[in-house]
């Protein structure tokens, strides 16, 4: 039986990378990509958990997460298109129309 710790460690590393990208990147496309990486890290963690307890549930959850990521990406990209049409930029820091104005 393969050790479950290395995929779990990989998942943690991937999540941290995604988080870093989310916090550091201004371009919203890259932000979306970072979110995808974080989702994949979560999926990988499910698989690692499936390994740990020798059940297929983790893999089933991974497929569900993939579906979710796809759906989310579709909506996210649509939002990005609208945002670009409105602000003529993909800079996340420029999209602050909902801030407290005072």
């Amino acid at each position, binding site marked *: 039986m393969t050790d479950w710790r290395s995929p779990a460690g990989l998942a943690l590393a991937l999540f941290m990378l995604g*988080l870093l990208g*989310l*916090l550091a990147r*201004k371009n919203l496309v890259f*932000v979306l990509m970072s979110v995808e990486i974080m989702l994949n890290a979560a999926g990988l963690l499910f698989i690692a958990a499936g390994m740990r307890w020798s059940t297929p549930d983790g893999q089933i959850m991974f497929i569900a997460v993939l579906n979710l990521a796809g759906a989310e990406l579709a909506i996210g990209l649509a939002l990005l298109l609208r945002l670009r049409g409105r602000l003529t930029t993909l800079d*996340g*820091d420029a*999209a*602050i*129309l*909902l*801030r*407290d104005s*005072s």
Partner: protein
Amino acid sequence: MIAYLWMVPALPLLGAVVLGLCGGALPARVNAVIGAGSVGLAAFVSLCICAGWLAHPPPGQIFVEPLWSWITLPGFSSAFSLYLDPISLLMMLIISVIGFFIHLFSTEYMQGEAGYSRYFAYLNLFVACMLLLVLASDLLVMFVGWEGVGVCSYLLVGFWFAEAKNGEAAQKSFIVTRIADIAMLAGLLLLALQCGTLDIRAILANAAASWPSGTWMPALACGLLLAGGLGKSAQVPLQTWLPDAMAGPTPVSALIHAATMVTAGVYLVVRLHALFALAPGVLEAIAIGAAVTLLLAAFAGLVQSDIKRVLAYSTMGQIGYMFLALGVGAWGAAMFHLLTHAVFKALLFLSAGAISMRLHHEQNIFAMGGLWRKMPAAFAAFAVGAVCLAAIPVVDCGFFSKEFLLGAVWARSPFLWGIGIAGAFLTGVYIFRAFFTVFFGPRKAEMSGGYGARILLPLAALGALALTIGWLQAPEFLGGANLFSAFLSPAIGAAPQTPPPMFVPLSGMAAPLAGVALAYHLHANGFWRRQGATAPGALRQILQRGFGFDAAYRLLLVQPFLLTVNALRHDPVDQAFQLLERAAVALHKNLRRVQNGKLRRYAGWMMAGSLATFLLLVFA
């Protein structure tokens, strides 16, 4: 005729309603006819009732006209009915007849004033309330009239409301009497709780049967009712409103603040005399308070320069005499003085009004002078009134009533009698001081206009009454007629028939004469004129302000009240809750800064939050 008793208060009430609703749309002439006519009709009905009464008195000298039942509760009921006995008959006659003359006077006096119809509406309403007060068979109904006259007094004192000081005087009279009325209301509630009814006859029967004389229950009830009466009748210590109430039109002062409303306290005590007789302590307090009042009023009257204020203090003093008689249990003497006082004081006020209306409403006696040749009618009327007020022997009604009254006081307490004599002396001084200053000496003021019949007729009628009604009750050495006490005796019992020793009536005659002589002497050597010309010294200022009661009340009651009001104005309890609100707002202002719209910042916070939760779950 007696069955039409309800018309007596109803007619002025109808007049008030008509004038109040559509008086402004009617011409002044119609207003005057309605205003004076309604009271005139009421006076006519009262006179007919009185004639019928004298010819065929009803059984027991009591007539009750039930109108309707007002309140019926388990344990308490109150009926709205009119009650006529010799006391209320007398009061009804005084109010309606003198009221009619004053209305008649007003129709000319107030000619051309703004608010002519309003004036008559208020005045009619006053007469209606006053008649209800004296005719009520139930103390609760009486209280309605009692409050009604208070409201009308307020409205009429503040009749010229455009001037702020008139409004303040009106408020003062209203508030002071209202404070007294709260005590009275408490007394009524006490009686209602104890007796289950406020019907006057039932209360008196109940009181005599169930409360022994001198116990605390009748004393408490009488004390509370008396407080109401003292406020209404401007007696120490609730007298401060009366001199200020002179801000109203002069006929109003004549009707409300001299002849009728201010004597309501006397009427209340006489009406409940059987109850008060059970509280000897209260009667003693009445007598002492009255002695203080009449001396205070006489001293204050000595230095006033406003003719109406002189008369106001004299009213206070004469009502003090009535209360003095009540204090010694001489109910009949008090009622007789009430009757004569109503006549001659109305006469004095009306003649003072007649004088000042021709002097451009000048009321300062030192600005008048030498008027006797120019205004013979006002001069004669004022002279008759002043003679009555000073109680100059034999010729006038004031002498007879004061003689009767002081004789009764002598029988009970020579000390109080001595105060009464001193008051009579001072009364003679101050009223003749005003008399000589106004009518003699050099002429100072410009006159205008003249008098019509509607001014002269009331003056003549009241003057004739003032000179004659005294003979209803003459002392022993002047024929000893006792028509008046015989008339009242079914209601209040016969007056004691022990004539006082000769020096009592003799000093009663000498004191006012000495007072007039002193006033004349001081007039002749110019003392009064110098007094008017110089600035008042400390003593005179104190007297002029009625012994500083106003200042004391301002310091002891008004200022603390205002301080409390100011402290409570910003609601200290609410302040604590506002602290919470302010904290929430401050927090909100700080927290809203994190809502900066930056996606990455939000994500960072979310992550930090998740991490914190995670650490909490793992390590805690």
